[in-house]
């Protein structure tokens, strides 16, 4: 512990002299108020400290005290359903203690509840040899998440004693006989947020993340353990996409980082999530969610930390063998926080004023996603899927944050303001977006459903692609100039757009579509095209088919509102299509082959 003196204060950046014994990334208490800060630059004995709290009324001459510890999070039962700020202070406790709706400064609050007792069930017996990452016991933290207490990293030994029963996170629960003598351990681990937690092996992601969002699951799937970016202009629906995935993704745990966005959006989460039921577990979605909030009016420096805090918590649950999804909304605000600090440090600016290391910082975050085998003798398999929203100013995706994100994220869901204006939600542009996992994921889904899913998806994509080309011709010379087959293509593509890709997040049924329902819906639309084309080959006219299949098309339009339990109703539409096309053929006097 060394003490220094503040030399200057510039917003969240404080420089202090007399800090020769401090190290970079040490946490300091700054000034009389004891604000929390982190050293980000050292020159001789002058340390630059980014302060995670408001610095007004802090002035030169006040003392700075280093703690000698890196910025760390506490990892133990008690994190789920909680909302933390960027440096893992629980916000509800904070409010109780300060009686204020805003962040009071200089408060020290333990990140995790120290008084709550958790029922610990040991998983090993006395005398077992354990290595780092091994599970010693479990705590049923919520109805759906069993919190596995693991041996901290760098520790191994023989279990000398282990307790059973209710304990707080700071009570000693087991003793290990290590090479350097007996050591007592609690349920809690601390981990520095800027360091990725070590793993045994990284795996190739093969399984898709089911989000229940048709455009994502069908056209641009993301793998469990993959990374995706959602860039979009204001009002295009980035937050809704993120919320939808947080609500419906088939993962065990969701870490939602609200980073520099409106406070109301986090309020939405708090209001909505507890009422929603997870289709995979049947329990409230809040039982598997950790929230990290650094809204736009909260200190900028803590915004920078919030992303790391989030991913460290995600990594901890991944190590237990869970699949975790982390949403960061929005990484642009985070990059702007980096820019602000960089500017105050008087570093040489790069593109658009962002620091030159923007790319490597973004990569650092996304590269912590992945599917891995965790440390430990059992070889637990866990994954982190990182999904980051990006808000490019003016919707121009050629700006540095988007570009640097795309370099590391393999999935790009480009939101489009013109689609959003047409009330096409989710406004993911099907021509601009891509997923580099498509092939593997489609093959996986195809095998699961036992259908040629890849071919269906390819056909869908080419139809949508053709549509945009045909639309150009139509704009120039009118729809009459198209051949009847092309006009049918336009009709089918329109069905795909309006009846399949468009999805209402606020409708009880439409908000989530299972893999089976997606298959049935897509199959029906493609079947319609197939049947109509066949009829055309037999001599039926476009107008006749359109008129004759009006009822079937109306049913297709309502398909999305068919509840999951009544999927046979979609199959009935297929029969109706075939029947109506047959009637058209008979009326037109053309023999059908059936």
């Amino acid at each position: 512990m060394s003490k220094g003196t503040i030399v200057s204060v510039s917003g969240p950046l404080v420089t202090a002299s007399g800090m020769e014994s401090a190290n970079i990334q040490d946490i300091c208490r700054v000034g009389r108020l004891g604000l929390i800060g982190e050293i980000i630059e050292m020159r001789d004995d002058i340390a630059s400290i980014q302060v995670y709290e408001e610095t007004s009324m802090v002035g030169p001459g006040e003392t700075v005290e280093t703690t000698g510890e890196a910025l760390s999070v506490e990892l133990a039962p008690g994190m789920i359903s909680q909302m933390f700020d960027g440096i893992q202070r629980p916000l509800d406790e904070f409010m109780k203690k300060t009686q204020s709706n805003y962040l009071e400064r200089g408060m020290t609050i333990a990140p995790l509840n120290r008084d709550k007792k958790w029922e610990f069930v040991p998983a090993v017996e006395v005398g077992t040899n354990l290595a780092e990452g091994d599970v010693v016991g479990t705590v049923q933290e919520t109805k759906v998440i069993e919190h596995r207490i693991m041996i901290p990293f760098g520790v191994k030994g023989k279990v000398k004693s282990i307790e059973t029963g209710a304990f707080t996170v700071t009570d000693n629960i087991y003793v290990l006989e290590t090479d350097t003598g007996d050591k007592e351990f609690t349920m809690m681990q601390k981990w520095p947020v800027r360091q990725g937690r070590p793993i045994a092996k990284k795996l190739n992601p093969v399984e898709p993340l089911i989000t229940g969002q048709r455009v994502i699951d069908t056209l641009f799937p993301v793998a469990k353990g993959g990374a995706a970016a959602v860039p979009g202009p204001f009002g295009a629906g980035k937050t809704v996409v993120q919320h939808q995935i947080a609500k419906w993704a088939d993962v065990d745990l969701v870490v939602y980082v609200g980073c520099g966005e409106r406070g109301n959006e986090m309020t939405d989460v708090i209001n909505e999530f507890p009422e929603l039921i997870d289709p995979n577990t049947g329990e409230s979605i809040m039982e598997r969610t950790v929230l990290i909030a650094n809204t736009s009016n909260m200190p900028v420096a803590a915004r920078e930390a919030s992303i790391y805090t989030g991913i460290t918590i995600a990594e901890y649950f991944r190590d237990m063998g869970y699949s975790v999804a982390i949403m960061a909304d929005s990484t642009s605000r985070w990059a702007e926080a980096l820019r602000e600090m960089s500017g105050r440090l008087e570093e040489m600016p790069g593109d658009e004023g962002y620091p030159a290391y923007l790319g490597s910082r973004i990569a650092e975050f996304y590269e912590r996603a992945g599917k891995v085998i965790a440390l430990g003798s059992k070889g637990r398999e866990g994954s982190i899927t990182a999904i980051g929203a990006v808000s490019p100013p003016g919707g121009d995706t050629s700006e540095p944050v988007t570009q640097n994100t795309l370099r590391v994220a393999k999935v790009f869901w480009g939101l489009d303001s013109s689609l959003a204006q047409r009330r096409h939600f989710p406004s993911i542009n099907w021509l601009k977006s891509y997923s580099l996992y498509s092939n593997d994921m489609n093959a996986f889904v195809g095998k699961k459903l036992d259908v040629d899913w890849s071919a269906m998806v390819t056909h869908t994509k080419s139809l949508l692609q053709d549509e945009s080309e045909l639309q150009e011709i139509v704009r120039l010379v009118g729809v009459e100039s198209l051949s009847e087959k092309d006009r049918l293509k336009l009709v089918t593509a329109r069905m795909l757009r309006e009846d399949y890709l468009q999805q209402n997040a606020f409708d009880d049924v439409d908000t989530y579509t299972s893999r089976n329902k997606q298959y049935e819906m897509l199959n029906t639309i493609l079947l319609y095209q197939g049947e109509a084309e066949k009829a055309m080959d037999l001599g039926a006219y476009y107008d006749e088919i359109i008129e004759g299949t009006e009822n079937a098309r109306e049913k297709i339009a309502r398909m999305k509102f068919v509840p999951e339990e009544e999927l046979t109703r979609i199959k009935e539409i297929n029969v109706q299509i075939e029947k109506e096309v047959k009637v058209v053929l008979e009326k037109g006097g053309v023999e059908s082959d059936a």
Partner: protein
Amino acid sequence: MPNKIGVVGDKESVLAFKMLGFSVSFASEAKEARLIIDSMADKDYGVIYLTEQLAEMVPETIKRYDAKLKPAIILIPNHTGSRGIGKKRIQDNVEKAVGQNIL
């Protein structure tokens, strides 16, 4: 570009066109007429002469080629006499083209 000319109608009315080298097909009911016209259109015929009597049976088929460059479907009277719809059609087309009935 040379185009073929087809004639569709009842045997008595259209047989004579064969002498001119047109390809002549016979039809007496809607189903036949429709198939013949569609197949001629597919084979890149430029002009199809169709008897008025048959034209009344297949209005959708005629409408289908209205907006197309090829084939031009021209209605002709048959041996029982003209029904006036052929002439009406020409007048309509002229009106569409020049904005006024100049005939």
